[in-house]
């Protein structure tokens, strides 16, 4: 790790101010950033911890919308979203291990937009709104490819608003080493229709599988997607699976998510 300055503001406003300095970076749960620093792959001059900001924590359900503070840990979501939005709670409860879940946050996960991360699939499928210190971003405008988002430098995710779907489930096929998603599919059915979001599979990061959405809108059963084929083109190929394998798993996991929803 290189040396850095460390601050731990109490409010979003103070954090935004602290992030204005050159080379300042927000620190959520540190489950991605700290390993990166330890490997000397990043060298921010200042880390601004969001951990002490009370207004960024907590889970609240009201009027069919689940609002999760940007600094809420995966463990808290797993616990507190269990009744209002069980699919999201289950997703959170299967991220990493207990230590990761007790530290890692939803804001950090969405801001990081790892192509294998779980939350992006939930946010995209549930048509969430990402609330920041300065604006609201519809999820369809938020993800911009691998590790890229619509966030400006120093912009903080303070809340995430999920319209609670009528039916939803997340099916995650584990990458054997990291246990991130080799392929993860979140399906959400609401009055607005069906949305299917796929993570882990594609080189461009999380995406919506519109062909499956159309089929499921007509018939929300696993059988409805059995005949669909995802093209291998654009899928990730690595040690843990070829593009063909991932494309195949998208179909399998979509059917399993529908069955579980």
């Amino acid at each position: 790790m290189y040396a850095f300055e460390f601050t731990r503001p109490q409010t979003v406003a103070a954090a935004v101010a602290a992030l204005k300095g050159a080379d300042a970076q927000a620190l959520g749960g540190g489950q991605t950033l700290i390993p990166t620093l330890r490997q000397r792959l990043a060298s921010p001059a200042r880390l601004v911890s969001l951990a002490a900001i009370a207004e960024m924590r907590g889970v609240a359900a009201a009027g069919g919308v689940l609002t999760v503070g940007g600094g809420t840990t995966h463990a808290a979501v797993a616990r507190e979203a269990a009744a209002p939005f069980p699919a999201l709670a289950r997703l959170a409860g299967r991220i990493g291990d207990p230590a990761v879940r007790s530290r890692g946050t939803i804001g950090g996960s969405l801001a990081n937009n790892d192509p294998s991360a779980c939350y992006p699939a939930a946010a995209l499928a549930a048509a969430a709104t990402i609330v920041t210190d300065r604006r609201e971003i519809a999820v369809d405008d938020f993800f911009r490819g691998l590790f890229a988002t619509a966030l400006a430098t120093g912009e903080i995710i303070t809340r995430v608003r999920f319209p609670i779907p009528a039916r939803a489930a997340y099916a995650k096929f584990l990458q054997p080493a990291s246990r991130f998603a080799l392929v993860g599919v979140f399906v959400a059915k609401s009055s607005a229709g069906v949305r299917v979001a796929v993570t882990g599979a594609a080189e461009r990061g999380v995406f919506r599988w519109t062909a499956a959405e159309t089929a499921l809108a007509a018939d929300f059963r696993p059988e409805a997607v059995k005949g669909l084929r995802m093209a291998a083109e654009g899928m990730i190929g690595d040690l843990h699976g070829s593009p063909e394998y991932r494309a195949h798993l998208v179909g399998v996991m979509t059917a399993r998510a529908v069955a579980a929803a």
Partner: protein
Amino acid sequence: MPKDSGIGASVKRREDVRFLTGRGRYTDDINLRGQAHVAFLRANVAHGRLRGVDVAAAAAMPGVLRIFTGADFAAVGGLPCGWQVTGRDGQVMKEPRHPVLAAGKVRHVGDPIAAVVAETLEAARDAAEAIVADIEELPAVIDMRGALAAGAPLVHEEAGTNLCFDWGFVEDNRAATDAAIAAAPHVTTLDLVNNRLIPNAMEPRAAVGDYNPATGDSTLYTTSQNPHVIRLLMGAFVLGIPEHKLRVVAPDVGGGFGSKIFHYAEEAFVTFAARALNRPVKWTAQRSESALSDAHGRDHVTRIDLALDREGHFLAIRTRTLANMGAYLSTFAPSVPTYLHGTLMAGNYRTPLIHVGVQAVFTNTVPVDAYRGAGRPEATFQLERVIDKAARELGIDPVEIRRRNFIDRFPYQTPVAVAYDTGNYHATMDKLVAIADLAGFEGRRQASARKGLLRGLGVNCYIEACGIAPSHLVGQLGARAGLYESATVRVNATGGIVVMTGSHSHGQGHETTFPQVIADMIGIPESQVEIVHGDTANTPMGMGTYGSRSLAVGGSAMVRAAGKVIAKAKKIAAHLMEAAEGDITLRDGKFTVAGTDRSVDWGAVCLAAYVPHNYPLAELEPGLEETAFYDPANFTFPAGAYACEVEVDPETGRVVIDRFAAADDFGNVVNPMIVDGQVHGGIGQGIGQALCEGAVYDANGQLVTGSYMDYAMPRADDVPSYVVDHSCATPCTHNPLGVKGCGEAGAIGSPPTVVNAVIDALQRGGHRHVTHIDMPLSPARVWAAIRG
């Protein structure tokens, strides 16, 4: 009723109190006054000519004490190899120099180029990044076949070839084996890979060097399985420090699995630098550094042919293996694919003709050496896989074909040099059939099928050779070390005992099991016996712990030393009771004159030995302390039968192990609970190899699996709850405890069990074209195999 103390009792591990309460003392816990820290600059290319190393800017950075490069080590020795294999052509193996820091060339990603010693670790790392290494990258050889191709780039130009040696065993059987295979009614052939593994001990390697200018003594604290071996190798061959001026301490060590047997560059470096700088120097590996610098394991590519008659009797076995040595010869690397592998190719079976051919190959990868099982898992895997394939081809049940070929008379001389002293393979198979409930398999298979899952059953046997010995034989085979073990039994004046052993415990529980043996011999509580190990300053010269040898060899030395102590104590007791020595018996901590009620207890005799007021001083020296060195007459041969049931999800290729049963014959068992634990751990590692683990290099020699993001370690939910049994004991015939060794069995026996089960599942599921899948059987590989 189960015993609660002594041999055969499941005594709880006393060392766990300190391990589980954070009171262990590992190498990284050692912080010496004035200690400086090291960061190594390691090669980031697999092969390159080192044109120069510019340390000027780095050396001027704050906190930097000194930067060392290969030039600093030109005058000292290279890291030695402890085993010299002679090839079929009578030529000794190629043994290129392995410098402490790279000189002239870098030969694998991770090869150390320079070392910065600084006041703090961060300062050392900062400076290491500022060193400019001028490397002319050369084409790398990664794949073994590529390395042997004509015109391939050479890892060591001075060797003139990448072939380290070409070994045949037993060479006299070569022609007869070929002829038997050519004439056989049925030959089953299998091409397979024994995947390269990264050891991943829980504690990364670490080393602290210290030098006392007042005495000229050097001390090395290191994560080692065998401190005496390190002292000898490093002192005599690398740094030129005589043993009496060098102390090596291996304190608590958090797992080794073989990877901490070897003498590593970092150990020599910190010892050398401490003397050069007159300050203690410390290094602790980062996890990613471990992957690039700990010796890897396995990495064999094999073709095996098994010739059978129509009834499934084995006629001949021929194997042709390429064994990866990596870029340099690690300490025991040449012995692994040869004498620890070829000698095991008979397995549990009568096969009249066996020929094993091994070509050892240099590549631009991390050195490969012994890893839990070392050669024996590779032998067992190919044999038990090819038997399974043969059984299927001939339509014979896999249990039945094995039974038909079992060795059932002992001693048995194999055609691959070793002689098994004892065993009962039918008994362990019978036990397995019962504990694995093989009869219930079909019902479970149908239940799985209703869930859309393919259930398969894998069964196999294994044999292991532990406690490699005797020294005069292994010397003829090329070992440059003896393979005895030592113990000193020191009795204190008030009767307590300290055993100083050359064995080293790094998870095996010696501190618990060794006292069980001593306590039984004398009849005193285990709490009166303490084990000291891991420090060359206070233990007799011993060879350390690996190859499941500690109880069989180290325990035997201890029994011998204790026997000498008891013999002397009897003389003292005879004197105290004015009786004839031959009439004295020792039981329950009491010496009794046979046929009388006269007795004297253990403590009184010990006191007399150290306060010799009433003592036969004319005939007997005072004191009660004896040392023994034990050189075994033969290997020991644990064996067993394993069964595994898997469920394969045909849609995803995912394999779940549902059941696993192990019936082992370890001879006599001192602590059944610890033996269970050793078997559990070994099977867990075997499952890791079979389903999860595999070190992968890309074509340029970059390690793709350099972190846990890509190197899949088995986790708790990858392994089932095991059923293990070791009641079928045929005691070893040639050591005093009748013990065989249990540390590696699980890792040797289990990989073929898992693979056999997966192939069985796919076959039963109608995927007849799948006869083999190379490990690890990741979901992607299984799915691809199903698709064909």
